[in-house]
Structures are given as C-alpha cells and as structure tokens.
C-alpha cells in the first residue's frame, strides 16, 4: 500500500506546484505589468544592473547595488 501511496502523494504535490507556477506565470504580466522573469533569461536577469541601480538608489541601496560585492557595510549593519 505504502509503496504506491507515498509516490502518489508526492506526484500530486509535484504536479500541483508545477500548475501553480504556470498559473502565476500566466497572470504575472497583467498583474505586475512586466514579463515573468523567465521571459528575460532567468530570475537573476530579470533586472538589469542599471535598472537595479535606479531602483536601489530610490531605496537608499545605491552603494551596494552598484558593486558586485558588498562594500562599506559595517559589522553593526544587518547585511545579507
């Protein structure tokens, strides 16, 4: 019984998650006004460095966003 039960549960969860991702992708542009990240070459490329710098400057993160490595962040500053 368990031989079939657990793979079935896992399969249902897997297919459910996949369906949720596809649903999110189909709704993304109409809700967020920009393409789903995979349309631009992957999640990490969804923001170009220049666009990131613009957004970062608006929230006070320009120094860290303009550099590929953390810089000027002291031990007392939460940094991730």
């Amino acid at each position, binding site marked *: 019984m368990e031989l079939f039960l657990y793979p079935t549960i896992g399969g249902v969860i897997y297919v459910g998650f996949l369906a949720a991702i596809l649903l*999110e992708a189909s*709704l*993304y542009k109409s809700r967020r006004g920009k393409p789903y990240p995979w349309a631009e070459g992957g*999640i990490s490329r969804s923001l170009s460095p220049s666009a990131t710098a613009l957004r970062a400057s608006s929230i006070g993160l320009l120094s*860290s966003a303009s550099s590929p*490595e*953390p810089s000027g962040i002291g*031990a007392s500053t*939460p*940094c991730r």
Partner: protein
Amino acid sequence: MNKWWAWALLALSQDFFFYWYHRAAHRIEYMWASHRVHHSPNELVLASAYRLPCTLILSLNWVFYMPLVWIGFPPLAVFGVLALNLAYQFWLHTTLIPRLGPIEGILNTPSAHRVHHGRNPEYLDKNFGGTLMIFDRIFGTYQPEDPKIEISYGLVAQEYSLNPLWVAYGGFVKLIRDLCKAHNWRDRWDLLIKPPGWTPAPTSALGNP
C-alpha cells in the same frame, strides 16, 4: 505518535526550531554561505521557492532539529513534519497574493514572506518563521509589509550570475577568500560566526590595529 496532540506538539516544536535555524542561517556567515542561495533571485516568484542550497548538511541545519529527537519524537516523524513545513512555504514566494487580513501576524503569509525576501534596509532579517509568525512576534523579528514601500528582492549585493555552480557555491568561495585574507585566527573565527558583511578591523601598514 498515535495521539493527534503529539503531532500538533511536534509541528509547533518543529516550527520553533525552524525559526532559530532560519535566524541563525541569516546571522551566522558560515550558515549564510548556504542559505544565501535561496535569497539570490532578484524577483520573488513561486519557482524561487525551490532555489535551495545543496550544502545544507554542511551548514549544520540538522543540528537545530536534533533536540526534537532527543526529547523522544521519532526521527521519521520529525523529517516528515519538516517536509510538510517546507511544502507549506512554497505558496509564500509570490507577489500576486495580497495581504490576507486577520491571519497576518499569526500564520506565515506571502505578504510576510515578501518582507523576509526584501533587501530594503527596514526589511532585512525579519520574519524568520516557517508556518507561524508567533515566534517572530515573541522574539521581536516580526515586520508587517508596508504598502508604501516598494520591495526590492534579492541579496544586498544582487546576484546576476546564471552559472548554477557559482550561485550554489559562490558564498563558500567568498568566505574561503576572506578566511585566506584574514591576518589571525581570531579574525578567521569571527568571519565564520559573525553576521554576513562583518569584516576584520583594518590593519595599517605599520601593523597597528
């Protein structure tokens, strides 16, 4: 484990230990070297829920769940509840689900988790809970989403590499580089256990601190 309350107690206890694992993963550089992989996407979508590190065993996350086994919960039950906890967190990784009214601040929600993934200064190191937000409220790390703040996602220094090896192991490469550059063992130890971004005090050319 044939009583319903035993499972409820295990779920609650597991979320407590998940909170502390997760908080440590953000505040201890050695653990962050693994966990940063999950925070590396610059957009929050459901798929990013499964950008997970493959070095968790190395980063000692399992140590945090050992007390559950020591107090008598079967290891298989602990593992099963942990799997359910992580499966629950899948739906949190989206920007399309708005705030959910009265359950905000009690259960972990997409809104609370957007704050957790934000790199805005006011959102760093907040909302560590897995399924519940009560431990964040108890230990002072709960932060509700502010609709006036546009959230920027990803690492403080955003990751642009599409090289999966770099995304998976880059944190450890950077950590090893820093360890090699350190001047003494005290600094090396501190680099391992202090929060991400910590750097040893600069040493002048004359050797004075």
